[in-house]
């Protein structure tokens, strides 16, 4: 963890949520001043600090409820290739003109935290891992969905191979575009959670996360990090780019 916080992108990531929190409070106040909740004005509920606290507490509660609902053996529906959505939508916290390009030759996946073998992985080494494919529905927190085909290695296989402590709570990801997120261990071990290197049978193009994207069909799209540069296993809640701004952390489908 320390290592990530020390680098430049880490610092930037930590400033962003603070700004987002302020914006969120302003938004909440604005939301409440509107006609929709005019009937509430005058009571304590309009106190934005209180509202903020109640809403985050409910979001944490929803995290725990979703963890209970999550069935490690329940598989997401797999579709025929004819159902694939083309063109598959590009989505990130920036526009398509800002897609990060990661250099294949110098790429090294860094591992840290509760992992036994932390040697970095090159792309040829990753490509040599056992492969699997899936055609599943990607569901965005915004509401839209699209079906795509991803191929790569089952994340469970990878975690076992590097000697990750699979009794730990979280797996966190740091990405080349300064994006970061984290998932619960139960989901990380789900049979359909794949560390993918290919999209639609092609090497992952940059817009879909070259060189490596975690495909988690049991979670919303923003829990599927692209351009993964580093991952760590931890028992300390790692948050995420959107999660720290107020999106629900578990966000299971």
């Amino acid at each position, binding site marked *: 963890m320390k290592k990530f916080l020390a680098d430049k992108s880490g610092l930037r990531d930590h400033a962003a949520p603070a700004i987002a929190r302020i*914006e*969120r409070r*302003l*938004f*909440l106040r*604005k*939301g*409440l001043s*509107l*006609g*929709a*909740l005019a*009937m509430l004005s005058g009571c304590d509920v309009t106190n934005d600090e209180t509202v903020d606290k*109640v*809403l*985050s507490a*409910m*979001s944490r509660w*929803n995290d725990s409820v979703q963890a209970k*609902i*999550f*069935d490690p053996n*329940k*598989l*997401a*529906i797999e579709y025929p290739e004819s159902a694939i959505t083309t063109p598959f939508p590009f989505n990130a916290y920036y526009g398509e003109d800002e897609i990060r390009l990661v250099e294949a030759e110098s790429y090294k996946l860094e591992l840290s935290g509760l992992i036994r073998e932390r040697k970095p992985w090159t792309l040829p080494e990753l490509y040599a891992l056992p492969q699997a494919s899936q055609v599943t*529905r990607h*569901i*965005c*927190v*915004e*509401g*839209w*969905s699209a079906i795509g085909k991803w191929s790569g290695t089952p994340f469970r296989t990878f975690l076992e191979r590097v000697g990750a402590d699979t009794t730990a709570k979280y797996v966190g990801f740091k990405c080349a575009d300064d994006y970061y997120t984290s998932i619960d261990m139960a989901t990380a071990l789900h049979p359909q959670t794949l560390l993918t290197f290919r999209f639609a049978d092609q090497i992952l193009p940059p817009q879909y996360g070259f060189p490596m994207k975690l495909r988690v*069909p*049991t979670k919303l799209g923003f829990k599927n990090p692209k351009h993964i540069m580093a991952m760590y296993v931890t028992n300390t809640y790692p948050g995420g780019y*959107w999660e720290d*701004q*107020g*999106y*629900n952390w578990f966000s*299971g*489908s």
Partner: protein
Amino acid sequence: METATSAPSTTTLAAPAEWIRIHPLVVRITHWINAFAILIMVTSGWRIYNAAPIWDFRIPADLTLGGWLGGALNWHFAAMWLLTINGLVYLAYGIASGHFRRKLLPVTPRAVVQDVLEALRGRLAHADLSVYNAAQRAAYLGIILALVVLVFSGLAIWKPVQWQELTAIFGGYEGARVVHFAAMAVTVLIVLVHVVMVALVPRTLPTMITGRARNPLWGKS
């Protein structure tokens, strides 16, 4: 418990009371909690809809709650508990106490059409507050049904993997979104008519708060 729901037959034995109980406490409490929960669910839901509209229109942002998508989602997923638990209390009470059977049934299409026509002519049959006319019964049953569909289609959108069997009933994830929106639209429509009717017969409002209404027979014995 409910009392005095039918015409008093004891007028010769005792003088009728000035006030009669119309709405049981459970119904009044769950009604107002529900109205509050619906307000939050609908206005935050509109904001969520705007993030990826199904059709070629958006809801004016000023009518929405939450300020941004993440805020709206947090409101929606917090208020869903209030709506669902409160709704379950109301349904359990309504079924177990016989409240639904007594007040919302029977309702025949013929009676509904007749009462709606009466209402349109400005002659609303709602003199006795302890009895709902057929138009009311249809509206209340309709709104209860719409809310049940809203909750289940919402669960189908929330858990399209874990509860995929439920999602399949609504035609999959995209189908469930459409059903969820349609159930919202029906709910909002009936609620608007409902509130207009309350405005037209304003003495129903204090009754829904205190539970009591003046007995039309009082002082006549």
